[in-house]
């Protein structure tokens, strides 16, 4: 009996992704399969993508609690969003604090401008960024990629695989495309709406914080 390729390797691909703690790349999957079954096997990235899609459809129709996602240059199993609070309860990693606005802003600049030096970064942000750079380095979201050839040979910063994982990106081209300045100006209304949503969220947070700090103040007074 001749099995079609999809039938043969979908199960293998599932096993490989399942057994890997870290996202496993298409290259790696192809390497393993060719290593076992011979170089003449025809297996492309597209075949793997199709298999993964097929698997995800199967999980969805079976109402499974997990799926395969594309992240950090590879594939990885992840639990579905609907179970987030239960799974998160066990894991302190998820209860960790979110990144601050300053951190996100800095990451955005580094992600697009990498490799970028501290002065370039500070020029855009308009504030000293020593502390935030150290925090991001510590969290392994950015790394030092080298030194610029300009005067003083300042350090260059770039994003890491950890950065891709943190934001659920497959690679850097998955980043939201920053709008050109002209574009930003054109649809001011759109931004206004978006900002309103954001500001509401932020204001809620601020209110909560104020309440907390007020109650703290009451206690100290």
């Amino acid at each position, binding site marked *: 009996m001749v099995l079609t390729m999809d039938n043969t390797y979908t199960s293998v691909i599932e096993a490989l992704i399942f057994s890997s*703690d870290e996202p496993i790349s298409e290259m790696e999957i192809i390497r393993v399969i060719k290593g076992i079954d011979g170089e003449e096997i025809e297996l492309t990235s597209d075949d793997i993508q199709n298999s993964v899609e097929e698997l995800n459809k199967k999980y969805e129709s079976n109402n499974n609690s997990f799926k395969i996602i594309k992240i950090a240059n590879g594939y*990885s*199993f992840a639990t579905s969003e609907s179970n987030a609070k239960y799974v998160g309860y066990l894991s302190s990693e998820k209860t960790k604090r979110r990144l601050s606005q300053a951190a*996100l802003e800095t990451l955005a*600049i580094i992600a697009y401008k990498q490799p970028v030096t501290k002065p370039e970064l500070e020029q*855009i942000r308009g504030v000293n960024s020593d502390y935030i750079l150290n925090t991001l380095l510590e969290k392994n979201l950015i790394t030092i990629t080298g030194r610029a050839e300009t005067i003083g040979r300042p350090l260059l910063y770039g994003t890491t695989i950890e950065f891709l994982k943190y*934001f659920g990106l497959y690679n850097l081209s998955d980043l939201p495309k920053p709008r050109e300045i002209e574009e930003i*100006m054109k649809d001011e209304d759109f931004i206004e709406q978006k900002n309103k949503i954001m500001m509401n969220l932020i204001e809620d947070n601020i209110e909560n914080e104020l309440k907390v700090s007020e109650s703290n103040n009451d206690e100290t007074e």
Partner: protein
Amino acid sequence: MYKIKLDQFEGPLDLLLFFIKRDELNIYDIPISRITKEFLEYVNLIKLMDLEVAGDFILMASTLMHIKVRMLLPREIDEQGEEIDPRADLIRALLEYKKYKEVAEDLTFFESHQRKLSYRGNYSEDAAQAPPEYDVLLKNISIYDLAKAFKKAIEGIKDVPVHEIKKINISIEEMIIYILDRLKQMSELHFLSLVHGMKEKIRVVLTFIAILELVKMQRIGIKESTTFNDFVIYGVNNG
């Protein structure tokens, strides 16, 4: 006065963008004197509270005042003969900053979504993590790591070789005499019984050399022993 929470702004550019948005100002035609006035009020506020952050804000305040002054003077002309708007650099910086601020907002959504997913190996990675408040001081280290390291350090001390030089007053000649004495009492002597009770390696070595020496001198002979890993020494009477 409008009360502003300090942490709300990531920097002077952020604050300016806030003023522009709040008062629905045209970013290409910023009323410099009005915004400078507001900005200075804010700077005076933070100067009282947080000097470290204030530096960047004061720099911006002086830039604003500089622009304000230049606005009053006749416009400078560039190479193409066009008037230079003193606000041009500021506007460019504001828009550039705004561009990344927007991306940061997108990243916030990604972050929120990503926090709802858990991956395989999630818990094992987690176990090594310290409570969040110690994040800065204890990076991925647990009490077990410390205990293991300490144990290793203690064991390591024993492993360090100690070189002590002890002079053992013994020579091959003395050993030769000793062996011959023993052979006078017994005609045959097992090597292992000869060295039995010798604490220092050097004594055993010297005994062995003495035996070889005696064989060479033809004073003793050696032969196979009935017991394993041993040999028998016997005296030779040659005079």
